[in-house]
């Protein structure tokens, strides 16, 4: 059974069409990643998935409720970690949870009972009375996650949950999200970090210019989109390297001072490159970043 289903959804702002016929299904228990460059329509899509924006055309169903008509009813069973922290800066951690619980109709007593557990889960033990203003960026993010769990949601929506965090904080968030998946929580996540998507997600959709351009598990996407191996070449001899690699590469791209050679036969390519001076090479398996770049191009998006 699907938790979230979008069917041929369009969204226009005046002349501009931001989402153009998007269809997606998030199955129960999945960790579904929504990837796309800036301006691809991710944030607008998330807003529509929560009933906070009305599609110009198409249908959205969230947890059996038709959106945006029954959005409030559906959101009772959803937790949201927004892209920008909107914790209450004047409140303590515990007060933030208390206030949030009231929005879900929870009694103060039942929120207080949950507070210690939830803070512990988010790595904020004993921070009950710490004002939000005194928390680091990573702690604020974790408190935002804690807040989203106050109603024991079946479905958790996270918009770039680890942007701006240091590696330690990112790993902690990942651990917690995996733990939630184990407990059966369905997750929808947007991210710009391909390693994050590869690590966490069971299903991925890449969207660009408001349309879905790829769908599958991380492995499927890599297998279907890219040659299996990549050799990156750096150094002064790039022009020679390009000529030498051409015969052994399915596809070669240059980005700034780096050459990306995509191939199914890395050994032959490495041998060809080994004879050249003035270059350094890095041999690695293809990853989601290669897929993403191939699908959406190397040009900068605003």
């Amino acid at each position, binding site marked *: 059974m699907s938790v979230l289903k979008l069917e041929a959804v369009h969204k226009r*702002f005046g002349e501009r069409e931001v989402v153009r016929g998007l269809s997606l299904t998030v199955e129960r228990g999945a960790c579904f990643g929504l990837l796309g460059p800036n301006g691809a329509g991710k944030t607008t899509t998330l807003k529509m998935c*929560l009933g*906070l*924006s*009305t599609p110009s055309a198409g249908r959205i169903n969230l947890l059996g409720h038709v959106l*945006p*008509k029954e959005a*409030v*009813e559906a*959101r*009772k069973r*959803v937790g*949201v970690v*927004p892209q*920008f922290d*909107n*914790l*209450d*800066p*004047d*409140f303590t951690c515990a*007060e933030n949870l208390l*206030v*949030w619980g*009231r*929005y*879900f*109709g929870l009694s103060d007593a039942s929120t207080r009972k949950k507070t210690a557990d939830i803070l512990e889960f988010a790595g904020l033990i004993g921070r009950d009375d710490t004002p939000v203003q005194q928390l680091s960026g990573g702690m604020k993010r974790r408190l935002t996650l804690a807040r989203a769990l106050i109603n024991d949601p079946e479905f958790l929506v996270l918009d770039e949950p680890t942007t701006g965090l240091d590696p330690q904080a990112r790993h902690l968030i990942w651990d917690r999200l995996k733990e939630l998946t184990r407990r059966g929580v369905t997750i929808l996540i947007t991210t710009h970090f391909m390693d994050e998507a590869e690590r966490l997600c069971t299903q991925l959709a890449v969207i660009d210019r408001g349309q879905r351009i790829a769908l599958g598990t991380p492995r499927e996407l890599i297998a279907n989109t890219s040659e299996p191996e990549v050799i990156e070449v750096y150094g002064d001899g790039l022009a020679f390297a390009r000529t030498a690699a051409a015969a052994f590469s399915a596809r070669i791209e240059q980005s700034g001072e780096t050459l990306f050679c995509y191939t199914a036969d890395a050994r032959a390519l490495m041998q060809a490159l080994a004879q050249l001076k003035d270059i350094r090479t890095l041999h690695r398996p293809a990853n989601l970043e290669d897929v993403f770049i191939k699908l959406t191009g190397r040009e900068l998006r605003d």
Partner: protein
Amino acid sequence: MTNLLPAVSRRWVAVWQRIYLAWRKVALGSLMYSTIEPLLYMLGMGYGLGKLVGELNGLPYIVFVATGSICFSAYMGASFEALYSAFARMHIQRTWEGILNAPVSLDDILFAEWVFAACKAAMAGTFYLIAMALMGLVKTPLALLTLPVLFLVGLCAAGIALAVTSQAKSYDFFSYFITLAVTPMSLLCDVFFPIAQMPAAVQWFANVLPLTHAVAIVRPLLTGQWPVGIALHALVLFSYGAIGFIIATRLMRKRILG
């Protein structure tokens, strides 16, 4: 979303509590301001100008000023809350955006803002009353009835102000509104200067303005008389507030929910 009228659920109370809790944290400063300001008005205008004016409509000038400016103070208090503070929560702190992720509707949030602003008007009025009582300017038990009236004055002011906030891009926008549409009422609406002395055209205009109707209820109550035409005055205040709030809801839905 297609509802023409605001659709409010019980969850508005949770939003009201959030605003109240945040306010309580800074209440001390706010309370000082709320008590000192009316005292300054009464002392300055009442005693200063009162020496020159003597009595007005059978009232010492200080009583005339106090019973008028309590209404203006309530009106201002609610306006500021629904302009600056609501704008901060909507746009600067993105509080509304956060709340909307929970099972709370935009209409619930707006209703909470509306009622909270009106509560602040009633509270400003309470401090004014205490100050007046301390100075021996108010002696009638009818005075207690002014508190619900000032709540209504707050609904009136905040309903209009929320509609203005829905169109604001920055705080600057509010200065125009305050200067052009709020402050002039203190000069026209029987607050400091009796309306009866004004030219007929100005009187007619003043009677259209909401603050005139607030003063028409509150001044008699504070001086121990039952206000003439209280139902009509109250209806005018409520209509301004309710129509303002309905317009605010429609404009805010367009702004926030696209």
